[in-house]
């Protein structure tokens, strides 16, 4: 259930992001938008990843995520807390077992919350942010609530 968390800089990130005007076919290891993914044959989708913004309603991508190994949730602003709910719903409601990666504008200090909600990868601007994120991931050794990493609340584990 719990996946190893990958922290990478933008420079090291192994996936390309398709420009919005680009049309199918796409190269392997490309993150494409929901519209772009819809235009790709189902049997070819496993080579690609889906990239969608933090404000995406879960229902609009529920079908698409079944075909891809990676979903990237892109933040336009670190304040957009909808991405936390989106990740939890992908994991806990749709049982998505692939990778969930955070991209765009978020803070390294938010990473522990993200990880608890089901994110397993983070694309960060530089090495310093990677280091800060690692500190953030290890900031807390316990938590009260249920979340993807802890399916039971503290009071059931005591």
């Amino acid at each position, binding site marked *: 259930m719990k996946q190893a968390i990958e922290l990478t800089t933008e420079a090291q990130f192994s996936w390309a992001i398709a420009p919005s005007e680009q049309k199918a076919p796409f190269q392997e290891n490309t993150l494409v938008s929901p519209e772009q993914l819809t235009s790709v044959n189902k049997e070819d989708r496993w080579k690609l990843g889906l990239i969608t913004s933090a404000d995406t*309603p879960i229902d609009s991508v529920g079908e698409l995520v079944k075909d891809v190994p990676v979903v990237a949730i892109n933040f336009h602003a*670190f*304040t*957009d*807390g*909808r991405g*936390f*709910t989106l990740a*939890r719903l992908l994991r*806990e*409601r749709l049982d998505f077992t692939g990778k969930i990666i955070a991209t765009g504008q978020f*803070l390294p*200090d*938010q990473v*522990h*919350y*993200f990880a*608890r*909600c089901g994110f397993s990868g983070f694309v960060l601007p530089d090495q*310093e942010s990677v280091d*800060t994120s690692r*500190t*953030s991931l290890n*900031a*807390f*050794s*316990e*938590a*009260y*609530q*249920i*979340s993807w990493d802890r*399916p*039971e*609340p*503290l*009071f*059931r584990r*005591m």
Partner: protein
Amino acid sequence: MIIAKPDAQTKTTMYTYSEIDQRIVDERVEQYRDQTRRYLSGDLSEEAFLPLRLQNGLYVQRHAPMLRVAIPYGLLSSQQLRKLSYISRFYDKGYAHFTTRQNIQFNWPKLEQVPDILAELASVQMHAIQTSGNCIRNTTTDPFAGVQEGETADPRPWCEIIRQWSTLHPEFAYLPRKFKIAVTGNSETDRAAVQFHDIGLQLRKNEQGKTGFKVFVGGGLGRTPVIGTVINEFLPWQHLLTYLDAILRVYNQYGRRDNKYKARIKILVKAMGIDTFKAHVEQEWLFLQDGPATLTTKEVDRVTSHFSAPDYSQLPEESETLNRSLASNKGFANWYKRNVSSHKVKGYAAVVVTLKNTGVAPGDITATQMDHIAQLADRYSFGILRITHEQNMVLTDVRKDDLFQLWQELESQSLATPNAGLLTDVICCPGGDFCNLANAKSIPVASAIQQKFEDLDYLHDLGDLSLNISGCMNACAHHHIGNIGILGVDKKGEEFYQIMIGGSAGHDASLGKILGRSISRAEVPDAVSRLLAVYLEQRLENEPFLATYRRIGLTPFKERVYETGH
């Protein structure tokens, strides 16, 4: 031979941290220490530091940073109060300020010392987690919880359960806007203003005698005051946390994020309509209901066991000592009449210590006063205190026999102003003297009113009357729900005040109505005096201000205030 059980707990009258509770708070201090270090060394920009410090209660205000510390559901031990006193002396200017949300604020801490302050707080099981920022804030409740008649159940264990659930909740740390929850255990008298919170919970029993909550959603003050709407008439207690999760999740997904003035849940509930909103919540709840976050009897019992009743003595209901002192001392009798209230245990009483001396900002308390109150709490009230949303303190468990002595000791520290619930028990925000957002000052208005209405007989004759003053429409002092509300407004760069009347925070919740055009600061005390004159002329026997207003309406008050040349 009696062998102590290894897990036997010493009896407590308030929640005490487990090893894990303590660890979480300690880890938070270290996390914040690191964030502050990075900010001071230039690794973290102002912009990136802002949300991090806010989630730890640190604002940057007019003169200096301001640190808001949570007093969970208003409950404080004497040891904690001594620590707050120490912090205010050592790290601040020797005083602090109680807010209307059962928090305490330090107005002059140094940014670089805040991690040390947080560590001091952690050493007495306190913190500043989520005291600001767009997250779930400190849960508030009735300051008389557990000691007065008429309670369905004690709200404090439920508040603690909510505190733990909301602390560092991973999904709801970046909501559209801040989120406040209040709980009351009393179905007759609501002293927690639950209908003015994002979520209000009222403990109740159903026909089968089972405990649950009446759930209100979408109440709030600020720019758009709204009375909360019932979303669930009876939510069985087991489902409390999953239901809260469902409401928060709907809000997190659909609440507006494009305009901060329209971002509170009240706006969402209005926009969707309660039926649609409720349908969304129920839909979400289907997935969470009966899941692992469902509360267990074991957990509720564990938390409840922390709030045992103190070791009350068996006393007669009447106290001879008390009656003698009441008969012989007018000052004491005045104070008794206003500041002492009933207790469910025979021979005991609850005492309100008002922090409303004329000339001092309402809610302000000095380090010396904190030390004294801590000592009095130890001597007279089992070492426990409460903070009220009227910015006062309560000693909840005082023997009637001790009241006179307690009063004398309070007197000697200027802490026995006999004005609880009276006009001069003004609820007031920091306003233009301290706050960046203010349109106008509020503290001088409070002082002017307290000065004008000093005559105790007159005040006692007026009886219960709430007066609330906010320096801008953010409504930190709840001016909409004061019987008399005063709001600072800006008119072409000048400070003016809008007057409203008829607000109420209780079960009969109502919002005040604006009297008419706003007036200058100098005119405010006179306007208040005219309002009171109308009341005194028109009231029926034993009729409080609010009831008179509801009976005769706005017009007589309005006409008198704006009448010229008299």
